[in-house]
């Protein structure tokens, strides 16, 4: 139940894009068409649901102070927290590569639609950000998985909504200096305002 609550909270209230500004680069760059936005969004959900629990495991069993106690008494006082960034980003980059190869092998059709977005995801701040937030908030493994999935879904919703708005925007007359990034920023602000209305939803 707690896990479900975390998932819903990370989709609507603590939305990766609107509340934490994470994944903005690809959010702005890949939101010109709904179809490509769906591809990227799905890839983000996929990778987040895998990497957050995986990084949780590494954090709990290797990096945290005293986490290596399972290897024997000698390791009980080892604190590898300073390696967190480098290990997390390596895990994410490796996972993305692995996922890409697996999809290519078993489902060429899915690879065709997701493939080009996967390399982009390794440097998407939403992915690394979720892992870092997961550490900050002391989640259990179930909660971490729910959080990963929820964050991904939140990003998916946001990018599809923005892409749909931008497709319509082509027919409107925007001032020259505001074309492209400027108007997109303002729209994102307004969307954030709309998402604010979800505050207070809890199970």
């Amino acid at each position, binding site marked *: 139940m707690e896990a479900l609550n975390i998932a819903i909270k990370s989709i609507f209230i603590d939305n990766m894009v609107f509340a934490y500004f994470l994944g903005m680069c690809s959010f702005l760059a890949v939101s010109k068409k709904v179809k490509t936005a769906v591809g990227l969004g799905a890839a983000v959900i996929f990778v987040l649901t895998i990497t957050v629990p995986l990084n949780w495991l590494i954090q709990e069993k290797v990096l945290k102070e005293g986490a290596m106690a399972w290897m024997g008494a000698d390791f009980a006082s080892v604190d590898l927290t300073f390696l967190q*960034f480098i290990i997390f980003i390596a895990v994410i980059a490796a996972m993305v590569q692995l996922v890409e190869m697996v999809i290519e092998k078993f489902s060429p059709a899915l690879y065709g639609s997701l493939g080009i977005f996967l*390399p982009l995801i390794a440097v998407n701040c939403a992915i690394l950000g979720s892992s870092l937030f997961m550490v900050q908030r002391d989640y259990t493994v179930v909660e971490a998985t729910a959080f990963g999935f929820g964050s991904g879904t939140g990003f998916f919703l946001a990018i599809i909504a923005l892409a749909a708005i931008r497709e319509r925007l082509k027919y409107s007359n925007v001032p020259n200096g*505001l074309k492209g990034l400027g108007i997109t920023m*303002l729209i994102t602000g307004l969307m954030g305002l709309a998402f604010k209305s979800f505050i207070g939803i809890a199970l």
Partner: protein
Amino acid sequence: MSTDVAEAPLEVKEPAEALLSKRRKRIVADPLNEDNPITVQVLGICSALAVTVQIKPTIIMSLAVVFVIVFSNLIVSLIRNSIPGRIRIIVQLAIIATLVTLVSEVLKAYSYDMYKILGAYVGLIITNCIVMGRLEAFAMANKPYDSVLDGLGSGFGYAWIILAVAFFRELFGSGSILNVKIYEPIGNMLGVTLQTNGLMVDSIGAFMILGIIIWIQRTKNGYVEH
């Protein structure tokens, strides 16, 4: 993403170039205005907005980013000829992550309050697209000294935009500048209570202000996106 910045100047083979020749001045000056990483190239927006509620953390954040860009540019440029093309992303990420770890450890040791305020966003410098973008577009193809200049230009181009956003957010959102109260004395002088705007403290204020800054800057530059 970084595709539209790929046209980096080719390596120049002239023997003795002045330490601050015209071309080198351009390398530093272009990203400050005409080729600004945030407003024109659309890179590194994530961290640009998250830390800008107050000016002080923003200054720390900008310094951290400048440090990471300059040194990762330098290191990658020094070893650019021995990095195999296929694994260059991992190599670049490892270099950036090491530098960011350094920054985060120094912050933790000397300014723990700031470390707490910035939180996960220090770590997120790793995935700041500006750093990655400059490595790919410039450092991989240019000499170390030029790369350092490019890093300085891009770093400060990023810094002044987020400082501008932070200035307006702190002024309108908290009624202060660098924690010095501005609204209260003015309000007392006029005999009214000036209300702060809660939206500015919120993420929405950041989107709006950045949108408006981009609008003003692009109107002045004459840059139009199609």
